[in-house]
């Protein structure tokens, strides 16, 4: 911790030395937004910025730091002193930054506190119960997820404001696989598919959507991928398009035959099996590395250096559902059971969801555990 504090302190000191230069650089943009609007000052010219840069940076940086701290620690406004015009303009920006409070627009403050305290009270009991069943790590994730319940979406927030006991549960079923549940019946309109329901594909708002007998799914096409859900009659044919080795060795109940394979623009692969009793659906998605293809995808990870275009990055799998979700085990590993759908689990770098509308929970989990 000492090292962390020292590092942070050191970084702050370094950054403060850069403060003046930084605000000079952002000055034009910010002043065009604020100062130009309020009429206090006029947007300075490039020539003035250059003059500013030639001033004694160390002296101004020290003074700037002192003045900003004064702004931050008191309600006193910065008063003009014999300083360059540019400096006063920059201080005006600093004043406006200091006066900005984004947190007033956040709706989570009260619900989050209630959830934090409520969850904390439950922590000991839940830990003792769950640790024996699914291990400490998953338990903690479940607990943590309870804290996130109110923040998943603005929709959820609206409901949370009405009833704090309603929440979304998140269960992490692997290093990079998780599922979030919205328990709000007000927002649930799940249509349970009929037996033998043929999957229906539609495209809307840039998303692909797939209606199946075990639930309705959708997602955003990955950059550079086909935007069309492709259908195949065999796994071998689908394998040509699928970006990973499709897992196909299961122990299926008697009577189930592969009917169709779909490869989605998000790399999900759906295997549809039919029987006289009903459908079985097995969905797979690899947790792998993707290449950052667009500038907007650039992520600057401070501790390990920037991730640049063309560099690979690991992605995980997240799923939202409005159905009940509970923690279960698949091959003694943490998994989630999605009511009305089936288990979601992670194995060998693949996230899976499986379900059969005429299969019992035990039967579907047995299929999941037979996966090779």
């Amino acid at each position, binding site marked *: 911790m000492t090292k962390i504090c020292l590092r942070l302190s050191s970084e702050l000191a370094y950054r403060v030395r850069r403060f003046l230069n930084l605000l000079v650089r952002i000055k034009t943009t910010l002043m065009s937004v604020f100062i130009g609007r309020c009429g206090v000052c006029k947007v300075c010219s490039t020539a003035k910025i250059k003059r500013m840069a030639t001033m004694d940076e160390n002296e101004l940086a020290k003074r700037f730091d002192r003045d900003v701290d004064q702004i931050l620690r008191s309600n006193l406004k910065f008063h003009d002193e014999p300083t360059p015009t540019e400096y006063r303009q920059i201080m005006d920006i600093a004043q406006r930054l200091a006066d900005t409070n984004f947190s007033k627009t956040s709706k989570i403050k009260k619900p989050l506190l209630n959830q934090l305290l409520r969850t904390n009270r439950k922590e000991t009991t839940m830990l003792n119960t769950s640790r024996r069943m699914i291990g400490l790590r998953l338990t903690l994730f479940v607990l943590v997820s309870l804290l996130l319940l109110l923040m998943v979406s603005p929709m959820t927030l609206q409901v949370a404001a009405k009833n704090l006991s309603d929440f979304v549960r998140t269960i992490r079923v692997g290093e*990079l696989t998780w599922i979030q549940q919205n328990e709000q019946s007000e927002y649930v309109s799940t249509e349970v598919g009929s037996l033998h329901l043929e999957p229906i594909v539609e495209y809307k708002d840039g998303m692909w959507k797939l209606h199946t007998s075990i639930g309705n799914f959708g997602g955003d096409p990955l950059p550079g991928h086909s935007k069309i859900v492709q259908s195949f009659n065999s796994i071998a044919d689908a394998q040509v398009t699928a970006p990973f080795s499709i897992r196909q060795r299961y122990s299926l109940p008697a009577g189930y035959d592969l009917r169709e394979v779909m490869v989605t623009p998000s790399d999900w692969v759906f295997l549809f099996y039919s029987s006289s009793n009903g459908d079985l659906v097995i969905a797979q998605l690899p947790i792998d590395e993707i290449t950052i293809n667009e500038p907007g995808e650039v992520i600057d990870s401070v*501790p390990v250096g920037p991730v640049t275009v063309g560099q690979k990055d690991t992605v995980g799998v997240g799923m939202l559902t409005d159905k009940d979700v509970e923690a279960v085990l698949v091959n003694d590993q943490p998994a989630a059971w999605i009511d009305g759908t089936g288990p979601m689990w992670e194995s060998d770098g693949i996230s899976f969801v499986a379900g059969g509308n005429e299969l019992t929970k035990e039967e579907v989990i047995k299929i999941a555990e037979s996966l090779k």
Partner: protein
Amino acid sequence: MDKSVAILPNEILHINLAKEEPSAFAVIYEHYFPRVYNYIRYRIKDPDISDDLTADTFEAILANIRSYQSEKGLFVTWAFTIARNTVNNSLRKQRFRNWFSIDIARNKASSEPEPEQYHLENEMQTELLVAIAQLNIHDQDLLALKFGAGLSSS
């Protein structure tokens, strides 16, 4: 930022109480929520993700508050180390490909305000975020630590 809460009176006392009784954490939460949220919002444009990361941060603070030792550093430094790591980890790792239940997606589409209305709740703040977004991530962090978190350079 509300300057009147820049320093939490009797902070160590509240921290020690929170170590024993979680309900005492409320005082600390009330004090730090605006600063933590503002810090995260400076760095994360999306308000929903900012909410998530704020929750992550406070959960981590509460979960680990028993390990905080005042003799090793200021609580504010410790707390914002957590906030900073939370944001950095999110930027680095949380590149999840969301898989939706479309029923939720449909309801979201019909119940949410237009993105502009939602994000532009305060036009001036949004324009500020746009301006800040033009900076590189290190400079965004600098502004966030200074003006969002209200941290001193000392």
